[in-house]
């Protein structure tokens, strides 16, 4: 498995032969070529490149954190750190008996508010449609926003959530990670908040380092003693 992993840049040949091209690769004849800077992976019959850079591309069912930028009488527009603006319809927030005359949108969400939302629908013809109708979704009342590169979100979560659990347990902070690279950290203890933010930034900067979970753990414990 590990010997099939390779560092690639656009144009590099990943492999040749009958493989299924998945994300960030193209098929040219029988050659599979990388289209992004990243790490190539070959498993079973598929080939993909895990990107190390790039903007967030919305995917259905992703949890994202958005910031309200404006609203009309029927919907809000959210900045979701992507090339498209997120579209949150008022009926999603007020329920089905929403009336454009009776309900004032600003009573629920104002410009500048942070919202945890899920992407309900997205295709290439329309802007992503958001929903907050689920557990743990909706307006975020407290916490600090940390911005990291969207391509490093999987690293921050870690294998089966190990990295994020390490940080949460060491600092007692509650961390909400949006797939779009925006992370909200809230913690009662101001020192824990600072430490958690520092740990997240450390993951963002040193995502390529092996054994990062242990290093983060070490950093968190060292600060705790002093």
């Amino acid at each position, binding site marked *: 498995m590990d010997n099939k992993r390779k560092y690639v*840049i656009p144009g590099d040949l990943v492999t040749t032969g009958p493989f299924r091209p998945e994300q960030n690769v*193209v098929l*040219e004849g029988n050659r599979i*070529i990388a289209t992004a*800077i990243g790490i190539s992976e070959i498993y079973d019959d598929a080939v993909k490149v895990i990107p190390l850079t790039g903007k967030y591309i919305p995917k259905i069912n992703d949890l994202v954190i958005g910031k309200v930028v404006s609203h009309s009488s029927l919907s809000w527009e959210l900045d979701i750190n992507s090339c498209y603006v997120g579209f949150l319809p008022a009926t999603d927030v007020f329920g089905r008996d929403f009336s454009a005359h009776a309900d004032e949108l600003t009573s629920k969400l104002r410009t500048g508010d942070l919202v945890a939302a899920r992407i309900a629908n997205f295709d290439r*013809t329309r802007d992503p449609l958001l929903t907050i109708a689920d557990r743990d979704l909706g307006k975020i009342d407290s916490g600090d926003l940390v911005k990291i590169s969207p391509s490093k979100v999987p690293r921050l979560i870690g294998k089966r959530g190990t990295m994020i659990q390490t940080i949460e347990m060491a600092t007692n902070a509650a961390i909400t990670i949006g797939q779009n690279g925006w992370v909200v950290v809230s913690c009662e203890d101001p020192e824990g908040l600072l430490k958690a933010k520092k740990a997240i930034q450390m993951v963002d900067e040193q995502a390529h380092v092996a054994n990062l979970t242990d290093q983060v753990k070490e950093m968190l414990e060292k600060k705790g003693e002093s």
Partner: protein
Amino acid sequence: MGGRESELVLLDENGIRCDGRKVDEPRRIMIKAGGLKNADGSAYIEFGDNKILVGVFGPRDVHPKHMSNTDTGILRVRYHMEPFSVTERKNPAPSRREIEISKVIKEALEPAVMLDKFPRTAVDVFIEVLQADGGTRCAALSAASVALADAGIPMRDLVAACAAGKVADTVILDVNNEEDQAGQADMPIGYMPNLEKITLLQLDGVLTPEEYKKCVETGINGCKIVYDLQKKALHDKYFGNGGD
């Protein structure tokens, strides 16, 4: 051109050019990926005495809206020379030459970038020439493709560029400013090394069919040298020294 042709020897009897290079030797090239914090991707290139900085934004919203395309993303390129990039102050307003080079670079990058995944968006490439010494369009194109890769724009291949030309009836690689002014021909070439496809080819001057073929060949060899450096720049930024 001035009156310097008389005293300038472009190619001496030992096959050494006016700046001490051999006929098939490029100038010193240094490429660095990244470096600008606010741009989504960036690159800096030193190509002999050329110094060029490139910043890339996007994919992002298109303004003005009517330029957007519902089928695909669009690529926009601005090539700009600083007023201090040449010996005599250059007016910072875009000149006819800069508009042409912007268009030529855009069209040389288009076969490489794959923007069909980002409909209704734009990718903006800003090229700033800090210091010019002949062959800026090739250097700018090479740096722009590194900056696009740094921004994570999907690309089929990098575009490497280098010029070839003719001075004193000899085909040479990487034409510098003096050779461009007093030489017989200048041929900038943009090339995708893995796909083996040419994306830019211009020619200023007169060549015989044989010289033309030799020129293209020489230029492509130059592009391969540039490509190795582009590759190194990206490996240095993303994989550190441990990259394979």
